[in-house]
């Protein structure tokens, strides 16, 4: 049997992520500074880790309820209310998931299937498009523009909407651009979306990493709350990527259906991570502030550094990414990253890995030490001068 022939067409046709070759290259090299790692360089704060350890010591090694421990859901409910003014009932409007990634997947699968279209603004996190395709639906790309600071504009949505549009996925603060949307930015797109039967899936994993003003969620608009699934988690804010824990908040009628997929596919989130997450929300805030302060300092140094070596870049106000324009080098994003890695051993991710319109840009993360950033900038200057 040719097992590949047995694979579903949707899966076969979804391209693998475009960065595999960089792994192979890096494995052969030493002294590489990677600015390509989309996760915090901080370890999970100790108070959080210790709660995970205690839970294991106490023998807390069983399943939780499918939606997650009620104590955790209560903490999430308080957090969403205190931080963002969003009210969700811990009983039936919050679902604890295996990372934000699962929440993205099941919220897409709950609402869209073959024949449906999903609006996916790009550049954006690679999983959005993949999950839409796995669900058998069609992603409709919207190309965000550097001159709009990679914000989503109402007319872009209007142009993408057809009678098949079932959902739109919005991710701010954004991976890979670092862009954010403020209240007025959202207000403009709410005008377009508020009276349409389109589900909004709002990925807000980077909400805590907002460096100017306060994070805004589209669900804060009363007319949007009943049609929005808000996705958040612990990976980025609390440096808990490996624990795999996130959550979805939304109307009870939607969550009840999402919970079915979650129940059959995963049972529940890892309970060690759930105990740790309770501690994160109870006592993790000072550590979050400390990390955000540190990210912010590195952000400013990196943006300033890129500009000084001649790369145009708009100021990213969220997440931990800078998305400089590298067209001045005369190279494609891929060539730029490959040659930079070979010549100077600095690794970044080509912008087109996040959608075709990312071409001409690269993603660099400042989730690395200031010493690494400083050294990477020296090497990049040398690289640009060599072209």
């Amino acid at each position, binding site marked *: 049997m040719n097992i590949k022939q047995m694979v579903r067409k949707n899966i076969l046709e979804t391209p693998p992520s475009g960065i595999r070759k960089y792994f192979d290259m890096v494995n052969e090299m030493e002294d590489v500074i*990677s600015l390509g*790692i989309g*996760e915090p360089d901080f370890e999970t704060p100790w108070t959080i880790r210790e709660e995970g350890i205690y839970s294991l010591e106490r023998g807390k090694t069983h399943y939780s309820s499918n939606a997650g421990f009620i104590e955790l859901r209560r903490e999430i409910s308080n957090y969403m209310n205190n931080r963002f003014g969003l009210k969700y009932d811990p009983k039936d409007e919050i679902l604890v998931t295996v990372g934000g990634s699962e929440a993205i997947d099941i919220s897409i699968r709950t609402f869209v299937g073959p024949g449906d279209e999903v609006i996916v603004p790009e550049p954006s996190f690679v999983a959005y498009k993949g999950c839409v395709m796995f669900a058998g639906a069609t992603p409709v790309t919207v190309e965000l523009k550097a001159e709009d600071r990679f914000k989503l504009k109402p007319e872009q949505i209007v142009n993408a909407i057809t009678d098949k549009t079932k959902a739109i996925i919005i991710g701010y603060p954004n991976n890979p651009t670092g862009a954010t949307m403020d209240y007025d930015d959202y207000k403009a797109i709410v005008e377009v979306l508020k009276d349409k039967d389109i589900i909004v899936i709002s990925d807000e994993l980077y909400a805590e990493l907002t460096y100017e003003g306060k994070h805004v969620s589209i669900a804060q608009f009363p007319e949007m709350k009943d049609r929005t699934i808000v996705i958040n988690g612990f990976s980025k804010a609390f440096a808990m990527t490996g624990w795999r824990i996130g959550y979805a908040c939304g109307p009870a009628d939607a969550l009840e259906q999402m919970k079915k997929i979650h129940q059959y596919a995963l049972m529940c989130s890892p309970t060690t991570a759930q105990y740790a997450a309770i501690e994160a929300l109870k006592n993790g805030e000072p550590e979050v502030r400390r990390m955000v302060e540190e990210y912010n300092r590195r952000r400013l140094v990196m943006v300033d550094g890129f500009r000084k070596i001649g790369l145009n870049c708009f100021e990213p106000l969220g997440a931990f990414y800078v998305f400089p324009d590298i067209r001045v080098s005369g190279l494609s994003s891929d060539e730029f990253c490959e040659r930079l890695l070979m010549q100077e051993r600095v*690794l970044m991710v080509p912008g087109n890995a996040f959608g075709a319109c990312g071409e001409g840009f690269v993603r660099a993360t400042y989730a690395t030490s200031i010493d690494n950033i400083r050294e990477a900038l020296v090497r990049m200057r040398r690289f640009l001068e060599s072209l």
Partner: protein
Amino acid sequence: MKKELLSILKDNCRLSVEEIAVMLGTTADEVKTAMEELDEKGVILAYKALIDWEKVDHEYVTAYIEVKVTPQRGQGFDKVAERIYKYPQVTACSLVSGGFDLFVVVEGKNMKEVALFVAEKLAPIDSVMSCATHFVLKKYKDSGVIFNKTYEDDREAVVL
């Protein structure tokens, strides 16, 4: 800006004024002026390195000493504290609440040297009633820094 500047310097005083200026959204000159002012006003007292002497060939011992004293009329504890902290062997000295009065840190080449200092200099001071000397056997953490911790970045080289 000053508070933010201090918080940056507290974590890392080796950043260049240019880098600090970028972090604060100001100019290098302004940072320099602010730092000079903070130095002059005695807000910033020193820029020092934190060293793990265990890692170099260096004879060295630290003792934490609990000192009970009789406060002097009209001068409280200040006068006796001053007599103690003026010795260069004393690297730290604080008035504390609880079972004793002054918490004194003494450094020396070896235990004998520190013990002699306590016996000959510290204990005989008039108002000193008693000293309890605790020698440091192993340092785990100091000034917010964990000793003997090597940070290895074992994250995947690329994560989207």
